[in-house]
């Protein structure tokens, strides 16, 4: 509904042409849309109020730069404010000389156990020697879960179902030292912030082990309530950071802003999958555009860079420049995109995805679809693959017969190919510098 603030603002601000200054009425109309977009993204309503007030104050009377339309000007201010609120830079973990200890805390099911092991795996890759402590003696199977996961990454862990969690943690720290490990990550039981008994337990753990980091693990799908839990945990423990999980879904993740606003703590990592390597650094600017629904352009570039073969990308860029993108290349492209998730997922990261036909956005790069595409393209002659324009209806019928598909399938594919060709032309290659420059340009071309 409010999936794309860019579109919304476009509608609201279409009538405004470059004037000298933004007046109150212009700004009010835009603020309404921004408020809605933020609420739909689950940013807490009080945080929204403060945010909108801040943007409004900056926007009214603001000189519209000659290079921008009033709409673009408002978006620019919103983006800047948002990024400022989310924290300008990436924030990292703090390590002490010798033994570092990290505590994971949070509500039930937010992702503490999984994230604790992801973090261990990440630190191990960085050359550290992590150790895990399972302090959740309550949830059935919690200790076992941590054991199975740590074993799978070749990291040691400690627990003792006969002991109380405070004791487990102090024992665990000693054990880590004996094992020669330098970072100890403590997984604690999920708990409600209004459960006094459980909150005093965790406070006691904290006071006993005096950890270097206390990380609040927050489910990215959390709604308005995110502020309540976050501020209670902050009050009880004094958090050092936040990890946002389950961002691999389609949630807008407004909780990130709410939690940041009430705790003042930086988000240090984000979880983007169930697998143990699905932990990423947090980029405030990307999160800002995700919450605003304006396209996570930078993430797309990174994603593309990670999964697209660099030489191939170069070659592709050449072809694109020369406008030689053929169906064969199309097949190669989607083969590479397969590793990146559904096309829809990718499209959603593009600010202009809203303008693409629905059927293209919904084209999912699952195995079935891919096999079908492969069969269809495989049934074409070389000439047809080079120049799909020659595909008349009798050729299409022949290809359908040959590939065991229907003419509709062929039509859809050609349509998707055309759209994709257009998209890649806009994107350029995946060469980082070139692409980011292009992306910046694209960002500037917000639909106003």
């Amino acid at each position, binding site marked *: 509904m409010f999936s794309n603030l860019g579109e919304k603002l476009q509608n609201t601000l279409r009538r405004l042409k470059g004037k000298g200054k933004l007046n109150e009425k212009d700004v009010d109309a835009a603020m309404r849309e921004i408020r809605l977009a933020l609420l739909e993204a689950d940013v807490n309503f009080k945080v929204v109020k403060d945010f909108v007030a801040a943007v409004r104050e900056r926007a009214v009377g603001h000189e519209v730069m000659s290079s921008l339309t009033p709409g673009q000007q408002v978006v620019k201010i919103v983006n800047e404010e948002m990024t400022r609120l989310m924290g300008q830079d990436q924030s990292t973990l703090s390590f002490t000389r010798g033994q570092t200890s990290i505590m994971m805390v949070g509500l039930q099911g937010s992702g503490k156990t999984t994230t604790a092991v992801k973090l261990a795996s990440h630190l191990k890759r960085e050359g550290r020697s992590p150790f895990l402590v399972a302090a959740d003696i309550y949830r*059935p199977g919690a200790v076992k879960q941590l054991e199975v996961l740590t074993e799978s990454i070749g990291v040691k862990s400690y627990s003792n179902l006969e002991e109380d969690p405070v004791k487990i943690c102090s024992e665990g720290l000693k054990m880590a030292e004996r094992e020669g490990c330098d970072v100890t990550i403590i997984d604690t039981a999920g708990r409600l912030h209004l459960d006094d008994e459980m909150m005093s337990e965790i406070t006691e753990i904290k006071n006993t082990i005096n950890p270097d980091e206390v990380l609040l693990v927050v489910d990215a799908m959390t*709604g*308005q309530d995110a502020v309540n839990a976050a501020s209670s945990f902050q009050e009880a423990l004094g958090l050092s950071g936040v990890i946002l999980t389950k961002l691999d879904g389609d949630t807008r993740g407004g909780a990130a802003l709410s939690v940041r606003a009430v705790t003042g703590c930086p988000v240090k990592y984000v979880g983007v999958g169930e697998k143990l390597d699905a932990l990423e650094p947090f980029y405030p600017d990307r999160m800002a555009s995700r919450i605003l629904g304006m396209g996570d352009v930078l993430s797309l570039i990174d994603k593309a860079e990670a999964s697209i073969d660099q030489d191939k990308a170069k070659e592709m860029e050449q072809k694109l420049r020369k406008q030689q993108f053929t169906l064969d290349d199309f097949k190669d492209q989607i083969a590479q995109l397969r590793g990146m998730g559904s096309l829809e997922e990718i499209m959603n990261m593009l600010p202009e995805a809203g303008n693409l036909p629905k059927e293209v956005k919904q084209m999912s790069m699952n195995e079935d679809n891919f096999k079908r595409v492969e069969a269809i393209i495989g049934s074409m002659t070389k000439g047809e693959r080079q120049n799909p324009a020659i595909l008349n209806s009798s050729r299409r019928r022949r290809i359908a017969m040959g590939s065991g598909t229907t003419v509709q399938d062929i039509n859809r594919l050609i349509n998707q190919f055309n759209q994709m060709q257009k998209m890649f032309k806009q994107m350029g290659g995946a060469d980082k510098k070139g692409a980011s420059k292009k992306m910046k340009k694209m960002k500037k071309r917000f639909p106003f």
Partner: protein
Amino acid sequence: MSLLNQFKTSLARSKSGFVDRLGSLFGSGEINDEFFEELEETLVSGDVGVQTSLKLVDQLREAIGNQKVKEREEARKLLIQIITDTMSSGENSTLADQKPAVILLVGVNGSGKTTSAAKLANLYRQQGKKVLLVAGDTFRAAAIEQLEIWSGRAGVDLIKQEPGSDPSALFFDAMNAAKARDADVVIGDTAGRLHSKYNLMKELNKIYRVVGRNLPGAPHQVLLVVDATTGQNAVAQARSFNEALALDGLILAKLDGTARGGIVINIQDELEIPVSYVGTGEKIEDLAPFNAADFAHALLED
């Protein structure tokens, strides 16, 4: 404590912030624009969502006009009625007189499926039924052990296979076991999955079809477990899961926190999927049938 009281207590406890505000809102004073605005904000802050909040407030405006209501207290009663009506408009799913009756629990990661499966098993066993739990999450680490511990606590049998085995094959076998063991109720846990993941949703659809093929008419009740702290994304979840396997109802878990679970109003409104149960804690008995009037009252009354 009766289930209903338990439900009310936990709601009342968790709603304190919400209730306080509404208390002052409804307490006294005339019905003006500011009143409606505050009301809308209160609903939004309970995760009801902007669109649905506006819709509820519009309905309230109309009702106030029709019934010539002047007092905020009267307006409150009207709003309770409107929410109650919305939340009880669908048929609440009951288990068909099938034997075995199959219940399938689905949902995103960490919402409370496994715990809810145990709670349901306990509920039916207390009713004297022969219950079979199915450890359908063969993916997540120690998910099988988790349900195994719960099945012991509930005193019901468990069907399980090796970690990593194909869940639809497991469910196929489980249906045979249910018939052979003369079970009354089969409760299937499934792996958590984000609704936006195509392949995982396809896998779920396959489980659904396999169950139906082995036992025509099954599953008889598919319940989406939603974490009460979830925001607007829950609507997308309900939409996608409903497409993959036709939901019969929701379990609103973790309602014992401070979240109000207002998002279920959106889901009911858009998809007509009723709430069947609410989860009110981590213990096996912490499950209560959903009651629309209680929900509305607890939301708007202290």
